[in-house]
């Protein structure tokens, strides 16, 4: 059985659930969102990723209705949201602080939104029970928020925001307060719940690993603008700028001048060093400034000169970061550049052959890196 890939953004007939149209938001002199246009589709798990102050939270708060755009329009399911207050939107939010009502029990917290809809008691009770089961909280229904753990509180917040079956669920740094192990478990739980309920999720996070894990698409933001929107794999393998490449994961950047040569582009980057050969679909002018970006795990390291590598450079091991499953070698080139090379530790440590101050060769193929204009 072949499974169709979930990619509504590639389908021109698909109607987006959320449309940002030239949205600008200013707070006094400060521009939080700068002329932003973006579509988000139904059933997507869309991650807004960026450093603090990049405007990602503002974008989310505009979707929830807590902020209104200074300019531009936001549509949800085709409807202009400008005049719609937060309590009239089919959008629910899971707050960073969870914002659980301390005077109400877990059960009452989850029922809060349902009661406002004026549903009858049995329907509310049934829905609350369903949510408690979904988030595995049935045992804690009668507890108050201060009587449960952080992870449980996080699940109550999720259950409460899902109870009204919103078209769109907003998650503001939902896992920020959890420790690493719990966070990873919860990420998979979130994806699972998103799939089960079929709700569109928009998540705000500054943790790139989290965004990569959960999201169907990631938007990398900086200074009120979206720099790139793509699937996690594309963002990682084909960043469109040095900013994105640098923000997501670890990367080596070598800047130089372009010298086009058929479908190959040669980067001239330092006197007396061999030029770096890369492959690209974009056209570069000769002599144009160009940045060659390559992930450390795509750089091989060896003590002997590799024979058939497209690019090879000689250097000296400066530092070794041992991370258990992998090791990162910092290799200093004669030019002063430091290139990071990563290898998986398939052997036990005692058999490792490269150590500090060793002269080494680093090499990579002509398709391993990407060439970036900016």
């Amino acid at each position: 059985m072949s499974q169709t890939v979930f990619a509504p953004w590639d389908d021109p007939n698909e109607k987006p659930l959320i449309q940002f149209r030239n949205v600008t938001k200013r707070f006094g002199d400060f521009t939080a969102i700068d002329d932003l246009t973006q579509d988000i589709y139904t059933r997507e798990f869309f991650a807004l990723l960026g450093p603090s102050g990049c405007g990602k939270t503002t974008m989310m708060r505009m979707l929830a209705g807590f902020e209104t755009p200074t300019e531009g329009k936001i549509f949800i399911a085709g409807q202009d949201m400008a005049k719609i207050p937060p309590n009239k939107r089919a959008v629910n939010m899971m707050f960073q602080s969870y914002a659980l009502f301390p005077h109400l029990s877990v059960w009452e917290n989850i029922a809060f939104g349902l009661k406002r809809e004026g549903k009858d008691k049995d329907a509310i009770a049934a829905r609350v029970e369903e949510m408690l089961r979904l988030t595995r909280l049935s045992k804690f229904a009668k507890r108050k928020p201060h009587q449960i753990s952080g992870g449980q509180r996080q699940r109550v917040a999720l259950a409460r925001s899902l109870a009204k079956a919103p078209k769109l669920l907003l998650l503001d740094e939902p896992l920020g307060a959890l420790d690493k192990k719990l966070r990873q478990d919860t990420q998979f739980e979130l994806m699972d719940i998103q799939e089960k309920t079929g709700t569109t999720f928009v998540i705000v996070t500054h943790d790139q690993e989290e965004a990569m894990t959960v999201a169907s698409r990631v938007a990398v933001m900086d200074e009120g603008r979206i720099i790139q929107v793509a699937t996690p794999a594309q963002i990682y393998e084909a960043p469109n700028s040095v900013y994105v490449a640098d923000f997501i994961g670890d990367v080596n950047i070598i800047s130089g001048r372009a010298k086009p040569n058929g479908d190959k582009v040669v980067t001239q980057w330092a006197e007396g060093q061999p030029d770096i050969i890369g492959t690209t679909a974009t056209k570069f002018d000769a002599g144009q400034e160009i940045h060659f970006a390559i992930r450390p795990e795509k750089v091989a390291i060896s003590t002997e000169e590799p024979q058939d590598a497209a690019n090879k450079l000689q250097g000296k091991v400066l530092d070794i970061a041992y991370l258990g499953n992998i090791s990162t070698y910092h290799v200093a080139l004669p030019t002063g550049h430091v290139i990071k090379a990563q290898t998986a530790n398939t052997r036990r440590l005692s058999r490792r052959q490269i150590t500090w101050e060793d002269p080494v060769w680093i090499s990579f193929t002509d398709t391993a890196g990407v060439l970036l204009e900016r």
Partner: protein
Amino acid sequence: MRRFVLIAVPYLWLIALFLIPFVIVLKISLSDVALARPPYFPQLDLSQGWEGLTSFFAELDFENFWFLTTDDLYWKAYLSSLQIALTSTVMTLIVGYPIAYAMARAAPEWRPTLLMLVILPFWTSFLIRVYAWMGILSNEGLLNQFLLWLGVINEPLTILNTNTAVYIGIVYTYLPFMILPIYSALERMDDSLLEAAEDLGCSRLSAFWLVTIPLSKNGIIAGCFLVFIPTIGEFVIPSLLGGSGTLMIGKVLWEEFFSNRDWPVASAVAVILLLILVIPIILFQRNEQKQREAEG
């Protein structure tokens, strides 16, 4: 040993300054009035030994408490005090809550200043402030002159020496005691709770009723007790601002003591007042304790 000393200090303080005075007042309330100095009988004379002690206790009786039930002045005064205290507590709450709310919502850099303004009146003598109200509320006072000048009224309003003046005085005096606990409850409240309530379908008003009020409940209760308890026994405000029709137990007590020089009856009035106050004080402490446990 050190722990024992640490605990003993506050207990000694309480015994010396609260329990002993209370026992003395209780003893006087069980005595008879006498034309002597001090103006009551019997006196404890330990020089007569055991016999003196038994004859001393034999002289004590509940006559004065019985007397309080025979004259309807007393229970009317108690009742009227309770009613005035209750009404003014509600009025203080109505005036104080919006002030506390506005303070808690104000920009953080303004809050210390606003808090200062609430506490500022305490820097002036309470008595002087009550006299100032006499100047404001009297027939030729500032308020009447201002209203006449505005043309709102043709004749001066009689406010001074009525219950209205007493209410104004009480609300004014005890307002900080209402504002401060409510403010501290509201200030601690996380704003995202209101956003969450709105997000889940509440209007601003229903979010206020369902979230803000319940979360400031402990502040409201604390404020109400802090106003209600001292107001019942209030003496200065009704005697200075109130009229002959204002009946409050504090005033009755004062008259028994200083006008009638009937110390035993005055003491009996005081003992009963204390018993009435014990109930709200216990309730107040329970509320405080519950709050501490909830925050635990």
